[in-house]
């Protein structure tokens, strides 16, 4: 009952995906890196870049839940977890340790889009299934990469905001940290729309970590400098929450803002009656990576890149998300529902 309703809403969210699904044929070619000499039950290594942020904890939660399912099916016997504490060099060392201890699969969020490339090539050469999700590495020596499209994220956010402010006005742009690919890609994705609308004037841009407090601080000082702001193009959920709080504390009127599925932002959205738009980096990418690794190890062909369609939250469906809010941590992210059917469809897409 619950499962089917979850699936119903999942398919509603991923309508384009469902329409696009064709009949997947069982290909006989093995996926990249797979040699076929590894037999179940498998050991999966999860090379986390930084375990402390809530988004990461929630993601690890989905991985653990998936591994429990796979354990029951006798496909996995062990999950090895490392935490690089934000240091890309440590992550490389930990991936090396995973190779040394001969795990069957490595799933990772990369701490650098370039640094782990060589150690991953070593793992690939040893027949280890590598599924890289969220922050990706620029290399072909992995079994599959899984992600949403950051550039599309920026593009859609900019489209919404520009139409919400009527095609002209003064806006702020809130970015994640400088020098991080995801943050850079989202920002670049917004460029085309901004260029196409010369009447939209960018007053200032910020680079802060994806946390509420620094974003609130940065926006507060920008509010002092800019008495007139028509909209905020925020490229991260915690950033949006920070901006809404900053406007609120300064007694300024709320303006159209974009965001992400951060629970705090969604609740502020409802509370302040905002006109807003949000998308998400679903936490279940982690569960999907574990699932995909086991599929690949069993000799199934998996696409080298699995593009996850961006689920969209707007004023029409925000209540569906908030209805589930109590199942998520207060500073966490309310992700769209998922199940094995969805995973199968994602893997079958061409």
């Amino acid at each position: 009952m619950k499962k089917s309703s979850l699936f119903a809403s999942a398919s509603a969210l991923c309508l384009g995906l469902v329409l696009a699904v064709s009949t997947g044929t069982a290909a006989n070619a093995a996926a990249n890196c797979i040699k076929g000499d590894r037999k179940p039950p498998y050991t999966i290594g999860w090379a986390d870049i930084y375990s402390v942020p809530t988004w990461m904890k929630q993601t690890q939660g989905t991985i653990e839940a998936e591994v429990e399912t796979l354990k029951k099916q006798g496909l996995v016997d062990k999950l090895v977890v490392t935490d690089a504490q934000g240091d890309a060099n440590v992550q490389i060392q930990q991936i090396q340790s995973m190779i040394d201890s001969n795990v069957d699969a490595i799933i990772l969020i990369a701490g650098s889009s370039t640094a782990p490339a060589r150690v991953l090539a070593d793992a690939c050469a040893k027949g280890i299934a590598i599924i890289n999700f969220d922050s990706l590495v620029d290399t072909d020596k992995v079994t599959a990469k899984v992600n949403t499209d950051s550039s599309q994220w920026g593009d859609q956010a900019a489209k919404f905001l520009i139409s919400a402010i009527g095609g002209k006005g003064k806006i702020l742009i809130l970015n994640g940290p400088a020098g991080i690919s995801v943050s850079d890609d989202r920002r670049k994705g917004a460029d085309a729309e901004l260029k196409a609308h010369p009447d939209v004037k960018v007053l200032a841009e910020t680079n802060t970590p994806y946390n509420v407090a620094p974003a609130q601080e940065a926006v507060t000082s920008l509010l002092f400098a800019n008495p007139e702001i028509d909209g905020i193009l925020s490229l991260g959920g915690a950033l949006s929450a920070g901006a809404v709080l900053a406007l609120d504390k300064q007694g300024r009127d709320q303006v159209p803002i974009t965001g992400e599925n951060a629970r705090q932002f969604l609740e502020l959205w409802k509370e302040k009656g905002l006109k807003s738009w949000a998308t998400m980096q679903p936490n279940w990418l982690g569960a999907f990576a574990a699932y995909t690794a086991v599929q690949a190890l069993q000799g199934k062909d998996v696409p080298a890149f699995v593009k996850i369609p961006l689920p969209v939250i707007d004023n029409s469906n925000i209540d569906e998300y908030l209805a589930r809010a109590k199942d998520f941590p207060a500073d966490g992210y309310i992700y769209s529902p998922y199940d094995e059917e969805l995973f199968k469809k994602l893997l079958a897409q061409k």
Partner: protein
Amino acid sequence: MSMVPSAKSAGALYWPVQARRNIGVRSLFLVVLAFLVAYGVLFPGLFTASGFAKFTQSWFPLALVAMAQAILMLTGGISLAIGATVSLGAVIAATTMAGPLGVAGGVAIVVLAGLGIGAATGFIVVKLRLPAIVVTLAGSFIIGGAALLILPRPGGAIPAWLSDLLAGDTPAAFVLLVVIVLLWKLYLATPLGLSLYAAGENPVGAYRSGVPVDAARVAAYAISGLLSTGAGLFVAAQTGSGDPVIGTAFTLNSIAAAVLGGIGFLGGQGTMRGALAGSLLLSLMISVMFFLGFTPVAQYVAQGLIIIGAVAIPQFRKVQP
């Protein structure tokens, strides 16, 4: 108990002096040795050529930044810009070596950048008498910003042969480290090197005795900068590319390694071998905890306990009568 050397000749003096310098770090050496043995037992592949090579490669950049920090702390200075300088070295290497300048040109620029940044920092700290912690904190923003300007997002390339040479299946990194340690020994024998400890421990007394205190300290900053950009070059070779924020964690880790190795914050105390052992312990800890199957949360706790333990053991010995 203390070894009073019978000063017959310089040669007879050398080993007793070295032995006395080891006293402070002897327990650290034991801890490191215990971890090495544990690692070897947990992962016998360590004793193969490629296993040893990979392990020394993960240690090497940390060893270099520990030396970079230690040489400054010995003169009574400190640097909060080491991480940023590593990043800068990495992006310079990744943007020049695959271009017309080639590997030789790239190495030259990395060396010049390191020496130049270090010397400039040293000049500001020493000649303008500004606190090192403030100057290098400001420096870390400037240098980190420069790295982002050169390479706004991870990219660039290092010739594959150089990556394979430095970070392939040969212990090239370990050989390089041995060479660098020997060069350090040589440097300590030069007038500037000899002045290093004196300048750190008692700058006024050293100055009155005719020791070139300022020159020794500026030279220490320059060498520190060179070691940092050198670590950046190695990281770029190891990863095959440049990343403008790859070095960030090295600032704190370099201080941790140096302090763990018995280098005092006040200058003139400690030895380079201590700092190297400290960096080796930090690096070993990560691998050993992995093979022991510690969960990430347990790793945070264990890491803290090991560091406190390693620093506290010599103190216990001092308390005993």
